C-alpha cells in the first residue's frame, strides 16, 4: 500500500516537472535605451516598471537640430530625456512593442527605443535585482 502511494506521489512530481520545466539558465539581460521628449520622461519611467524593470537611469539630453534649422522651423523644444533601463531578455520584445504603440498614441510622446545586449553582470543579488527574477 505504501509502495503504491509513494509511486503515485513520485509520478505526480515527475509530471509536474515535465509540464512546467524550469529554464536551464537564468534569462539574459538587455539594456533598453528610450529617447523621448523631456516632459514625458516620468511617464515612460513609470510605464517601463511594468515590465520587471527595477533599475533605470534618466538623463537630460538634446536633439540635434541646428540652431538655424530650429529658428527656421519655429521649433522651441529639442529637450529630450534618454532613459537607460535594464530589462530581461524575455520581456524586451513586449516592452518595445508597447513603447512603439505609446509613441504613436500619446500626445508629444513620440520617441525611439532600442535594445543593446549585455554580456555580463557580477553578483547574484545584483542580477536578481536587475532581472526581478529569483530563479
Amino acid at each position: 500500500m505504501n509502495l503504491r502511494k509513494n509511486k503515485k506521489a513520485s509520478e505526480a512530481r515527475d509530471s509536474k516537472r515535465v509540464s512546467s520545466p524550469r529554464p536551464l539558465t537564468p534569462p539574459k539581460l538587455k539594456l533598453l535605451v528610450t529617447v523621448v521628449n523631456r516632459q514625458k520622461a516620468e511617464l515612460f519611467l513609470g510605464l517601463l516598471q511594468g515590465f520587471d524593470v527595477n533599475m533605470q537611469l534618466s538623463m537630460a539630453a538634446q536633439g540635434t537640430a541646428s540652431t538655424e534649422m530650429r529658428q527656421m522651423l519655429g521649433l522651441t523644444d529639442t529637450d529630450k530625456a534618454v532613459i537607460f533601463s535594464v530589462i530581461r531578455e524575455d520581456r524586451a520584445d513586449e516592452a518595445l512593442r508597447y513603447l512603439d504603440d505609446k509613441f504613436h498614441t500619446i500626445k508629444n510622446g513620440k520617441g525611439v527605443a532600442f535594445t543593446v545586449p549585455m554580456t555580463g553582470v557580477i553578483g547574484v543579488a545584483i542580477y536578481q535585482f536587475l532581472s526581478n527574477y529569483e530563479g
Partner: protein
Amino acid sequence: MSAYPYEVIFCIVNAGYSETAMDAAKKCGAKGGTVIHARGTANAGAEKVFGITIEPDKEIVMILVPDGLTDDILHGLYREVGLETAGQGIAFALPVDKVVGLPSGNAKA
C-alpha cells in the same frame, strides 16, 4: 558586416563640439542624434606623464545608424573630432538588437 541590423555610436567630445561631431556624422550618412551632457574623469598622474590636460566638461553624442554606415561614420568622427583635434573625442559602437520608433521604412522589433 555585423550580425546586427543597427548599431549605436557613442561619441564623447569636449563640451561645445557636439555640433561638429554631428555634422561629421551627417556627412557620412547619419540622420540625427541625441546629445547628453556629462563630466569626464581623468587620472591626474597619467595627465602629467603624457603631458595632456583632460577637460572635464563633455558631451556624449549618441547616434543610431544602420549597420554598414558605422565604419564610415567612425572614420568621419575621428577626422573631425578625434583625440588629436580640439574636440579630443573618442567614439565606439555597440550592437543594437531591435529598434522601434524610427520613421516608417526602417527596421522594427
